[in-house]
């Protein structure tokens, strides 16, 4: 396949860069910064080449690169992209050089290690986005954990020890339970297929449906890992700590890219592998998402620390993404993916902006600012675009994603043949929509506190406007936010086929109780529904004899 080498190259270039940087003498800080910038920029350019080979009309994985990694275990180094992941990869490679450019100067100790950590982090993130093999995905998922831990712990703020350990433990607990579920799927699949071949290939694993109860547990294990990463409402407490203590670069990457793995993991792994489990948990997930949207917004409003404010705004914004996914409508899912891209740009931009202020004033308290506009007009203008993009102003990127995911949620009850996954979709949609209003309130409130009003703090008098380097960071970012908002069509078009396929596969699974393959013999189909599933209205599968009734039916029944 043409361009198949591109994705491994995207993982390899930063890794080579990291090794290269580590081998240079310790004292050459500017050399390290230059190398970091060079390697990430090269990676960005290489990632643009993906678009050249990416076929929008193709709904399958593209640019697939597949070599056997561990024979005997069936683990492959298999990478590929589809409409869901391709722009997330580009978002990663786009944010990386901007982050290094924008924050490189503020890191003065252990610069070499800093650059190396960032490069390894990039490799891990891209690897996790493009992995099509569960084993590879898990390895990459963990690989990105350690550099982020180091970023927070070495270059972080006062309480960095606490924040870094909290970050690691939260993520670890989630991902280890996911590992149990991976073992289960992996072994059960091998036992179910005729020739007992072990494989961790995602495409192969999807072909065999697990028994109903196992799906519920396995989905819970996967969803826990991903919900922690998102972070979904009650599991979000690590995020404000991590963000506040992390250096700007860490915050940008954490919010801009790493949080996306939560939603991406749901879309790529948890839901396709365990469709029934997803259906059972969908009401809980969507309600938690809505709680997160509103709760995050309220808590963000109450913050004085700008970084904390943005951290909670992430809780709120990522809620839209989760909600959109579980609405299971084409709009909802597309909107969710788009909202992830937009959130990556805007929140990354917000953190970079705070970094700019922090570098000059060494405080992040809102009360310490005011009237900054007069001193930094260019920065204020650019920051306004980012803020508005985050708040969801039409014609900027945030609007498209949030609108689509709310719209998709609102209409979730009207889509057939899949039964509605979430309870009271119209109510949830309406509640989520209030989150947009609250979002506008706290973001504008923040903007007003910082930039408007009188310049009454003496220390703010000496603020200098953006340097050329910083302009080089913010202008591309604002352009991207603007372009995504005005002309989202190419991106939405690119993801459309994959999203439709995702939905279609799901329908095929959910309308039949044990999935299409029926290779797993433990739960035989009740004869009444076999073959006639599509004709039975509503097309919800009957639970096999002896199974408890489905929670989805008890809670569900929203807009009918």
């Amino acid at each position, binding site marked *: 396949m043409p361009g198949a080498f591109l994705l491994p190259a995207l993982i390899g270039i930063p890794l080579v860069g990291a090794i290269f940087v580590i081998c240079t003498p310790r004292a050459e800080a500017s050399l390290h910064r230059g190398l970091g910038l060079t390697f990430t920029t090269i990676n960005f350019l290489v990632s643009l080449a993906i678009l050249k080979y990416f076929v929008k009309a193709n709904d399958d994985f593209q640019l697939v690169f597949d070599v056997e990694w561990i024979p005997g275990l069936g683990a492959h180094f298999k990478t590929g992209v589809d409409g869901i992941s391709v722009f997330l990869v580009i978002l990663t490679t786009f944010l990386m050089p901007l982050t290094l450019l924008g924050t490189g100067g503020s890191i003065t100790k252990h610069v070499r290690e800093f650059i190396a950590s960032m490069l390894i982090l990039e490799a891990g993130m891209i690897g996790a986005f493009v992995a099509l093999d569960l084993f590879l995905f898990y390895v990459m998922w963990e690989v990105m954990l350690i550099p982020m831990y180091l970023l927070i712990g070495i270059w972080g703020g006062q309480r960095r020890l606490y924040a870094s*350990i909290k970050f690691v433990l939260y993520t670890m607990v989630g991902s280890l339970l996911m590992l149990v579920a991976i073992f289960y799927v992996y072994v059960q699949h091998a036992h179910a297929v005729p020739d007992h071949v072990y494989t961790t290939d995602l495409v192969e694993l999807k072909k065999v449906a697990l028994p109903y109860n196992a799906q519920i547990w396995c989905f819970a294990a996967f969803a826990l890992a991903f919900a922690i990463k998102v972070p979904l409402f009650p599991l979000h407490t690590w995020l404000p700590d991590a963000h506040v203590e992390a250096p700007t670069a860490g915050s940008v990457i954490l919010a801009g890219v790493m949080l996306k793995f939560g939603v991406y993991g749901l879309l790529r792994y948890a839901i396709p592998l365990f469709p029934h489990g997803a259906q059972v948990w969908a009401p809980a997930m969507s309600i938690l998402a809505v709680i997160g949207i509103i709760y995050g917004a309220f808590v963000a409003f109450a913050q004085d620390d700008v970084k904390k404010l943005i951290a909670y705004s992430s809780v709120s914004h990522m809620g839209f993404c989760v909600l959109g996914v579980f609405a299971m409508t084409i709009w909802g899912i597309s909107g969710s993916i788009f909202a992830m891209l937009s959130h990556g740009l805007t929140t990354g931009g917000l953190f970079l902006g705070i970094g700019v202020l922090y570098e000059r004033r060494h405080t992040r308290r809102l009360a310490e600012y005011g009237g900054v506009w007069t001193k930094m007009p260019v920065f204020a203008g650019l920051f306004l675009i980012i803020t508005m993009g985050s708040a969801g102003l039409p014609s900027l990127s945030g609007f498209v994603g949030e609108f689509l995911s709310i719209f998709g949620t609102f209409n979730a009850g009207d889509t057939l043949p899949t039964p509605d996954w979430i309870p009271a979709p119209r109510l949830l949609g309406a509640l989520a929509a209030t989150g947009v209003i609250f979002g506008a309130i706290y973001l504008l409130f923040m903007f007003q506190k910082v930039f408007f009003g009188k310049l009454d703090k003496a220390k703010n008098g000496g603020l200098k406007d953006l340097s050329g380097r910083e302009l080089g960071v913010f202008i591309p970012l604002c352009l991207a936010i603007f372009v995504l908002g005005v002309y989202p069509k190419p991106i939405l078009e690119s993801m459309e086929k994959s999203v439709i396929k995702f939905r279609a596969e799901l329908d095929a699974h959910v309308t039949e109780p044990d999935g299409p393959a029926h290779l797993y013999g433990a739960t035989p189909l009740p004869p009444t529904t076999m073959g006639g599933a599509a004709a039975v209205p509503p097309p919800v599968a009957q639970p096999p004899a002896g199974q408890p009734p489905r929670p989805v039916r008890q809670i569900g029944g929203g807009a009918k």
Partner: protein
Amino acid sequence: MNFDPADLGWLVPYLILVVAGMLLVLAEAFFKGHDRAALVGLAVAGSVASAIASIVLYRQLGDHEVRSVMGGMITADHTGYVLSATFAVSTALVALMSPAHQREHNWALGEYYGVLLMSASGCVMLAHAGNLVTVFLGIETMSIGTYVMVALRRHSKRGNEAAMKYFLMGAFSTGFLLYGMALLYGATGTLDLAGIAHKIPGTANPGLVIAGGFLLVVAFGFKVAAVPFHMWAPDAYEGAPTPVTAYMAAAIKSAAIAAMIRLFAGALGGDIVPFGSLGWASPMVVIAGITITVGNITAVRQDNIKRMLAYSSIAHAGILLVGLSATGLGSPTGVSSLVYYIISYSVTTIGAFAVVSYVGSKGRERLHVDDWAGLATQHPAAALAMTVCLLSLGGIPPTGGFFGKFLVFKSAMDVYDGQLLWVVIVGIVNSAISVYYYLRIVTAMYFREASQPIVATRAAGLFFVMTLCPVLVLELGILPGWWLKLIGG
């Protein structure tokens, strides 16, 4: 019993170690004082030669070929030679890191190298044991050497306490071992492991087999420091000189597991009427779960790095027992996963102890976590090596430790009907706990500043071990395919 002198060929890895060990004891008389380079050289050469001999013999054997030599006393097969090569390499690495520690901490006794190699010969014998007598001889050869090595720091109170505890516990467990063997002999009328496996289904006294199996579980529980037979381990690990601790954690524990593979998976592997293979596997899996949990939770509370690593090695013994139980319950990949785990754990733990040995110097061991603050600034390479080893111990990819755990848990999941799912969950949840205390060391090294300069041990051998082990750990994690093929997984 018929003896064919040609059979001695299959014993070359063992013989090299024994001969080198005896030569070392003799040579010690001629190399007095602190200059022990020649002794170290001979010890390393002997161990490496033994490892090479194992590799050569490995290549003589076909896939799945099992040769019973010396009248059934010794089993020559791929698993055995991979394990004996691993033990020999571990011994070589330990010997390489020893002179620096001897010099800095003043216990330069020349007998050490001779004893080390003789003890290692016991490990190699266990890897090839084909008879209860060889199991017993191997265990004793290996242990007696270790008792001596633990006691080498004669002037250290802790060292004496450690040696005493270790010796008493070891002697006590030997009683269990012998009693268990006697019962097995009583039930089957043979000492041959293959013969036992053959006779058990038709035995008139299944009760004796069950009781013997239980006693052996206890005896080996002591040897691998499984809970509740682990009490000696933290004290012995802490009191022993660091290279000896590394040897105990890597080679002794692995050799005991190797013997268990022979004994439990081999001789007792079949169904024991009327209990099925549950005779020993079910208590063992419970012990495994408890061992992992207790080991990890206790490690969380340790501030002394050697004690922390001791408890961590207890937890790892638990994971090895999970693999063994899985083998007993019919998992086809149990043995290969154990062998892989042994290789990766040996390399990792020797690497970790090498860094521990490096950080201390001039009689000061710097074992408290706080002593490690700021290591990354002052000794970045050592901190990086330690981090890689700790991540591997914690089972974080892409390290050998992760892949070892992956294989062991996979083999446990392969057991029919998901019987071992619970212990897999216990093991994996414990990994999260273990990450906490491993990262405490990383946190100290990277995130905190040193209050005073850390004067580390400078020695080429130690550097070599500190470089080689982390590289191998990463290699084992990133490209495990070659190793898997080697061990037939």
